[in-house]
């Protein structure tokens, strides 16, 4: 895996030089990437928890919205830490609501999720009209500002890496910049989010609870016959899923920005679902996917040239994949990737500057392209989306 990481960094470094986009691998970009990755990563983890237990959680977006609203509401009055806790609680309650609807009333999981999204959007607007409208700095679509949480930096990193970063050594400087960006001025919440990745992996794949939850997602009838209640475990999973989404929302209002704003979540709940598919329902690949999407998300706020450089990066990546597929004898696949790569290179050459409107959907387009070109041999949990009924045929 470290080989792949190194290769990626080298490629990015070379491309940023070739495309005249020095900001692609800068300290600022990496810091922004980390901040933008966190909510997507949390949404991905939330989707992972739910889907591993067999439930499709389309309501992630709504849970995130509740996280943003309650995070801002409580955070404005009682400080960011209380806001974060409130956001988590709000998300968790919606997760439990989904559990009641999809498991208790046995409504179609996707429909229940959609309904919760609609309710969450309406609720956020309604509550804003009562609590934010008329307050200093607030309105129906925005909350007053919330204080930020404390940030930390790795001691000594600045002193050690700064000189390397500013010296313009071709690839090494970029590596130093990237490292600096990842360890400087990192919010405590971001650290928590990153820590949740190994925690999730450990709980889901190394504890009895995780095993039981995964069993409910693969073959709930078998689990039920052994005394493992799918309803209970799916409820637990949905509560965690909602909590993650709520935390993502709280992150958006305390770290990524300092206010609740209508439409703030921007589809990140759904991008989170996409990261799970990208990661083949495994923890670390999901996190990697979240970072890829978060990185493109962050580039929207940086130099325009960086987004153009992304086209080249994607082209190189596609070429690599084409070579790999060609070696695996999937020639048609390889040809497809190769053609896509050529298209990207020509796009890069012909479009000197990527228009800002296009930049706005860079993460969404990336998600779409990644999903469209991903391996066809992905394996979802076997009972995903299927309602369980004791005595039924499943």
């Amino acid at each position, binding site marked *: 895996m470290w080989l792949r990481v190194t290769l990626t960094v080298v490629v990015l470094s070379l491309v940023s030089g070739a495309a005249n986009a020095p900001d692609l691998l800068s300290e600022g970009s990496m810091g922004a990437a980390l901040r933008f990755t966190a909510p997507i990563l949390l949404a991905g983890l939330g989707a992972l928890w739910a889907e591993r237990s067999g439930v499709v959680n*389309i309501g992630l977006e709504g849970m995130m919205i509740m996280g943003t609203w309650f995070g801002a509401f409580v955070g404005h009055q009682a400080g960011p830490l209380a806001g974060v806790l409130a956001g988590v609680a709000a998300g968790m309650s919606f997760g439990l609501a989904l559990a009641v*609807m999809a498991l208790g*009333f*046995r*409504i179609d999981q*996707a*429909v*229940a999720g*959609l*309904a*919760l999204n*609609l*309710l*969450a*959007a*309406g*609720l956020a*607007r*309604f509550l*804003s*009209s*009562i609590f934010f*409208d008329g307050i200093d700095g607030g309105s*129906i679509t925005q909350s007053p500002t919330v204080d930020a949480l404390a940030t930390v930096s790795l001691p000594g990193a600045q002193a050690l890496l700064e000189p390397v970063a500013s010296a313009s050594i071709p690839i090494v400087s970029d590596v130093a910049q990237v490292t600096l960006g990842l360890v400087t001025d990192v919010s405590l919440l971001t650290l928590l989010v990153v820590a949740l990745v190994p925690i999730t992996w450990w709980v889901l794949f190394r504890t009895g609870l995780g095993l039981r939850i995964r069993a409910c997602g693969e073959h709930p009838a078998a689990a039920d016959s052994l005394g493992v209640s799918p309803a209970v475990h799916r409820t637990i999973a949905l509560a965690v899923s909602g909590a993650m989404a709520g935390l993502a929302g709280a992150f958006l209002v305390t770290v990524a920005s300092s206010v609740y704003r209508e439409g703030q979540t*921007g*589809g990140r709940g*759904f*991008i989170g*679902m*996409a990261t799970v*598919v990208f990661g083949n329902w495994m923890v670390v690949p999901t996190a990697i996917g979240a970072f890829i999407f978060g990185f493109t998300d962050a580039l929207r706020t940086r130099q325009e040239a960086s987004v153009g450089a992304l086209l080249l990066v994607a082209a190189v990546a596609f070429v690599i994949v084409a070579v790999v597929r060609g070696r695996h004898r999937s020639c048609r696949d390889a040809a497809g990737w190769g053609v896509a790569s050529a298209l990207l290179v020509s796009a890069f050459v012909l479009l000197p500057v990527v*228009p800002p*409107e*296009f930049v*706005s*959907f860079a993460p*969404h*387009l990336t*998600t*779409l392209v990644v*999903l*469209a*070109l*991903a391996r*066809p041999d*992905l394996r979802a949990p076997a009972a995903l989306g299927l309602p369980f009924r004791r005595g039924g045929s499943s």
Partner: protein
Amino acid sequence: MTRERLIRPGLFLAAPVIAVGLALLVAGLVLAATGADALRVLQDTIAYGTTGRSVVAVVDKSVGYYLAGIAAAIAFRMGLFNIGIDGQYRLAAFAAAVVGGAVVLPWPLGVVLMIGVAMLVGGAWAAIAGLLAAHRGVSVVISTIMLNAIATGIIAWLLHPSRLAVQAPGSNNVATALIPEGGRLPTIPTPLGDVDGFLLVAIAVGVLTWLVLGRTRFGFELRASGMSLRAAAVAGVDAKRMIVVTMIASGAVAGLAGMPQLLGASHRYGLDFPAGLGWTGIAIALLGRNHPLGIAIAALLWAWLERSAQILDLTGISREVVTIMQGVIVIAIVVAYELVGRMIRRREQRFVGLAEAATPGEGPARAASGA
């Protein structure tokens, strides 16, 4: 048997009534909590909502909602969640506005051209999601939402004076060229006022959808695929083709959702073109149980709720109470339909069980037809 036939739709009508009742209850509680006289507000709302002008406004608004709902329902019937109606209708309206503003044709050719363009663009945009789902296994939910964002960006880029738009003199609004008379739809005079002309098209679409879904082989295959792709495949349905065709159909109807606004009201696509119709369409499809008639009632109800919100403003109550009501209605109705459906299934099972017990050995169908 006739009694049974009446009970089924009767129970299904009970569900929305219960849901609306629950929403009214919640709204009443919320209003009481904020110190308002709930009963008085209800009276005022009903009085305002039943004026001639209100009825016309409600019908006008419901036309767009109805088309969005039908679009969602077509996809829902096949088990697909076309969340991309938002992007589809806006892209379609934008394209239609550009073409309509550029090409001058006599009436009704201008209108027909714009409708055609809208359906084409909407269908094509949805087809992207359909193709990705059918051939690459990409979840329709995710791809349509991503396509929404992409559509927004594309429209934003094109809606610029240097590209496809013009700056309206003296205003901040950037919009496409004004559509000439040949591309405008007249209103229909009624005793209560002038109603949007696209209402007729919407009714036609609804009837057509009902016919196709319920009375043609394609409709049957679509519904069968929605219930079980594998079973439908056994019956000879090409799953991939069905997915793509359904999405195209859904997108084409979605493309029509922005037409009432474009052809009857604004005559140009500007920064102020209404957004959010897609989610309304989904909610309405859920409320109307994916049935063209149910969706019509749901669209009217939804439009009426939004109209009532305006009176709430005047009485000093937050109009967002209506937003909450809408959210509660959706949740309540989804739960209510499920419960009612289960009640009906249990009745049917009991009925079959009784018939089976009464005449052992014979098939339940034969016993039922005699009972």
